[in-house]
């Protein structure tokens, strides 16, 4: 049992390091700058935990006591279930105490008046710093190692440690912010409990009015709901149309259709709205043509729900297409053939067999469209005009002149209820209703092509919509080269020069206005991507390969975090991480954390899918050959998962670049992201630069994704060649 002691020694040593060397509280100027070292002895706030405790901060005494107790146990007791149980207790107690004291004592003393009357005044404290954070992690590991000594999960310390840390991280970065958002809604400015703000907001007619039924204006909640229904219906329909054209017709440009599915991944969300204004806005190209031709005054019809709806249709149809193409292809061809041999013509077959079999898939696409529309922030921001939707209202409640966090929290809760309901419906109601995979083996046959009376309208609509999409995207690329859109259409490179100018006058200089945010974006995306992939794949491995109590709850909670709209995340991060004990606003860390925990579910999903294809006996073989879980992961699982890892890396990189909804709350002057910067440009009416910048972003992402496809695609082609060779050899023999 030497191993038990060795790993315990390791983390206890780290605990000493955290208590004796690292500054306990947050270093204002940034911990990684290391210039705080020079002020060290003089400035009390920089002292490590032990010295803080000696200097009279009694809230650290229990922490010291717990660490001392752990050391005593290590020295006096042999490893075993009894010591294990004690260690679990120490770890949990440590974590709890850190949370309690951190939340209770703020910058200026007690956070709640009640505590002050009971315990008397206390000196305020800063947010947790490196020492406190490291010690928190160590407490988590102490309890994990304790559980391993008790024999939980066959005593696998690696798995237990990974689970504990993941639960801690998800708790801190997903659930703690949501919780603070809810409590924030019930707090006055001085922190005391009040329901006034909540009551005011919940019954606010601006949110819940149903006036539009009688000719007035509806509340923002209903309008958002209505918009989401329309978008979900529309995108499902268009997605189905595209899927049918791609799989069931002799249409010649199917490959081009498939390219459509890449668009939403590489397009920053507000770009479509931007292009629409250029096309259909007051001085848009199409508007001018129509006005010139007919003499009508089209005005500002685009700004409002109609415009948002069109933009969302353009943005989310490809997603629905991607979902439904799997559904349509998943129907076993012999179902349709059976129907045909049972005297049904193609139209009856389509109506009675194909469509009902697709129904669960259609419902799924509908719910996805619903959630996407609800969560969409970029398009409403650009096109919302005076009547926004929930996500933009939340934004303006915090950022604008209102500055009403209570209202923002209530609005965010409403939005969250909508999207979570859709998510739960998708998860529980649709689960087990999927017919698409019910097929026997030996399914030969081909999919029936569409009946003619369906095929022609479908192809026409697909082509029409496809052309519209292409036009919109052409606008984006072209718009960057035009002086003033709608007024002066002479070509120019000015916008690019202003955004991405480089000067050689005094050495190499990035003079363009976009460079700052561009490099910040790249840097943060590059840091976030590997972290996202690592956390996501580690989680996937735990979910697929380990049986631990609460596994399904854990998986469910993770997947649920995907249904939390970015705006809600943004507002909750602000509310959670603006004050001690965890103060991160204005740093790069908060952006990175936001990306990692927002995009992790995708990594998890990809990892689960990839891992499900790897036979579990591979792990077991490695374990019986004497490798521990960690080594198995490193030497067996990871090499086999390379494609999934690459995909997770690229996806999280690209998402970090395109995301706006959460980011716009979290950027600061020092760490501004490209999307937030572009939105700022749009608000100032600098469309030219905004568009030029957007095109550059799209090109960067095309390059990244293309490079990735090339890397992964080559392998696939190689395999097919081998197969073809084998086939020819067989037929020759």
């Amino acid at each position, binding site marked *: 049992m030497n191993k038990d002691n060795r790993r315990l020694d390791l983390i206890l040593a780290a605990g000493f390091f955290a208590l004796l060397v690292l500054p306990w509280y947050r270093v204002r100027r940034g911990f990684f700058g290391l210039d705080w070292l020079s002020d060290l002895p003089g400035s009390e706030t920089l002292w490590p935990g032990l010295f803080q405790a000696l200097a009279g901060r009694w809230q650290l005494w229990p922490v010291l006591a717990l660490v001392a107790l752990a050391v005593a146990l290590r020295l006096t007791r042999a490893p075993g279930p009894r010591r294990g149980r004690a260690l679990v207790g120490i770890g949990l107690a440590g974590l709890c105490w850190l949370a309690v004291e951190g939340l209770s004592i703020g910058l200026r003393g007690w956070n709640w008046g009640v505590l002050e009357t009971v315990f008397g005044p206390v000196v305020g404290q800063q947010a947790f710093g490196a020492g406190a954070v490291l010690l928190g992690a160590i407490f988590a590991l102490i309890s994990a190692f304790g559980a391993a000594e008790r024999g939980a999960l066959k005593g696998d310390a690696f798995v237990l440690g990974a689970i504990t840390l993941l639960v801690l991280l998800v708790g801190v970065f997903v659930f703690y912010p949501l919780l603070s958002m809810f409590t924030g809604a019930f707090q006055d400015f001085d922190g005391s409990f009040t329901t006034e703000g909540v009551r005011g907001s919940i019954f606010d007619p601006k949110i819940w009015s149903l006036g539009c039924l009688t000719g007035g204006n509806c509340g923002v909640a209903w309008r958002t709901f209505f918009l989401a229904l329309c978008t979900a219906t529309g995108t499902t329909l268009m997605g189905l149309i595209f899927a049918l054209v791609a799989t069931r017709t002799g249409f010649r440009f199917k490959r081009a259709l498939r390219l459509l599915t890449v668009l939403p991944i590489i397009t920053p969300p507000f770009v479509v709205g931007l292009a629409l204004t250029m096309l259909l806005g007051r001085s848009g190209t199409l508007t001018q043509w129509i006005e010139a031709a007919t003499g009508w005054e089209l005005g500002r019809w685009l700004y409002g729900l109609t415009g948002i709806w069109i933009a969302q249709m353009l943005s989310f149809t490809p997603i629905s297409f991607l979902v439904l193409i799997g559904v349509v292809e998943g129907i076993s061809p*012999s179902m349709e*053939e059976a129907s*045909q041999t*049972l005297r*049904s013509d193609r139209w009856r077959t389509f109506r009675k067999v194909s469509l009902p079999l697709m129904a669960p898939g259609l419902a799924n696409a509908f719910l996805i469209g619903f959630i996407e529309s609800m969560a969409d922030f970029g398009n409403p921001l650009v096109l919302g005009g005076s009547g926004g939707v929930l996500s933009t209202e939340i934004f303006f409640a915090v950022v604008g002149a209102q500055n009403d966090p209570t209202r923002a929290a209530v609005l965010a809760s409403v939005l969250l209820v909508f999207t979570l309901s859709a998510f739960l419906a998708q998860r529980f109601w649709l689960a087990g209703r999927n017919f698409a995979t019910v097929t026997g083996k*030996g399914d030969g046959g081909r999919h029936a092509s569409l009946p003619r009376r369906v095929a022609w309208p479908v192809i026409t609509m697909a082509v029409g919509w496809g052309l519209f999409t292409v036009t919109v995207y052409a606008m984006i690329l072209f718009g960057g080269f035009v002086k003033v859109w709608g007024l002066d259409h002479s070509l120019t490179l000015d916008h690019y020069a202003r955004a991405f100018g480089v000067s050689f006058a005094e050495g190499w200089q990035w003079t363009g206005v976009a460079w700052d945010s561009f490099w910040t974006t790249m840097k943060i995306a590059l840091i976030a991507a590997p972290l996202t992939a690592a956390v996501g794949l580690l989680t996937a491995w735990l979910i697929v390969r380990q049986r631990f109590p609460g596994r399904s709850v854990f998986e469910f909670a993770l997947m649920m975090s995907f249904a939390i709209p970015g705006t809600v995340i943004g507002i909750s991060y602000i509310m959670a991480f603006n004050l001690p004990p965890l103060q991160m606003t204005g740093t790069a860390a908060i952006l990175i954390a936001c990306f990692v925990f927002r995009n992790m579910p995708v990594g998890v999903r990809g990892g689960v899918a990839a891992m499900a294809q790897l036979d579990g006996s591979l792990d077991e073989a490695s374990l019986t050959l004497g490798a521990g879980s960690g080594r198995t992961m490193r030497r067996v699982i990871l090499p086999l998962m390379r494609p999934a890892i690459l995909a997770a890396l690229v996806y999280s990189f690209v998402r970090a670049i395109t995301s706006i909804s959460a980011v716009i709350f979290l950027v600061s002057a020092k760490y501004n992201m490209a999307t937030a910067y572009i939105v700022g440009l749009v608000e100032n009416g600098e469309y030219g630069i905004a568009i030029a910048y957007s095109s550059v972003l799209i090109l960067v992402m095309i390059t990244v994704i293309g490079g990735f496809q090339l890397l992964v695609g080559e392998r696939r082609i190689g395999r097919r060649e081998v197969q073809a060779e084998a086939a020819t050899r067989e037929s020759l023999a």
Partner: protein
Amino acid sequence: MRYKGAVEFRNVVKKFGQFTAIPDLSLSIEPGELVTLLGPSGCGKTTTLRMLAGLEGPTGGQILIGGQEVTRLPADRRDVSMVFQSYALFPHMTVAQNVAYGLESGGMKPAEARERAAEGLVLVGLEGLGARLPAELSGGQQQRVAVARALVLEPQVLLLDEPLSNLDARLRRRVRTEIRELQQRLGFTAVYVTHDQEEALAVSDRIVVMKNGVVAQVGSPRELYEAPASEFIADFIGEANVVGGEVLSVEGGIARVDLGGAILALPARGLREGPARLAMRSNAARVRTAGAGVPGRVASSAYLGDHVEYEIDGPLGRVFVVDDESDTPLPVGTEVVLDLRPRGLALIPEGV
């Protein structure tokens, strides 16, 4: 050929792009007959069936059902129905709805279709299960629903595409007997695709053996087994040894054949004097330790309870022989003689 239920292929050609699946197929099937299309995978048997069903269009030639040309008729307007390998039961409909589906497609009133569907379920022994979903039935029951669904339409021809391949071995034997009984009782024409020669021998009136899209031989199970037309047939049906011998003389259709020293009288099948190939079934020889016959030596032996399988090296090469005498299995290396019986031997007509 104006009978209901007759099928005829006239010079049918099928190409998939550059690849020719069926070069030239002519075949006729009598009414009330159960004909099996048998062959290794990729031999074109399923393609032939799908062309008959109307799921694939032939590249050339004609297909007739009941004396009517149907070559260009789509599947839903042909008087055939099909049992799929995967059963293809509609998972969103109950068993009764599945069976009634084809009837309703044909324009029958729902009430009447329901009644007829119930009768169809009785026919396959599934009365009372109409309200279930296909997923709630066992594999064997699903298979019967598929048969009932096809049969209630009273098609001229029933097509079965490897209907037993998703069942386990024991069930397979029972279901194939049921299908055969049903076919004989109701007297419909059936075309049955399989790659399992035992299944084909068990159910068929006639077997069509196909290879590379070409009909290799057509005949009753006995004809194929006892008088294979080629080495391929001899090997594919009943795994015969193909051995070399010499025809010494032919008289009145009977040939005197020298087989490794033993002289046998066999039907000549058009062969003349000279070297010849013979199909030798595994039961064509008894393995003896003494007496007259072809000499040999045991190369391997496997005791299987009621019989022993040997491989014997000798003048015929290595041959596979099954001996019913299992009381004293002979060890490897024993010198033996093969006592040949004409019943398990046949001359193969094609040249050496």
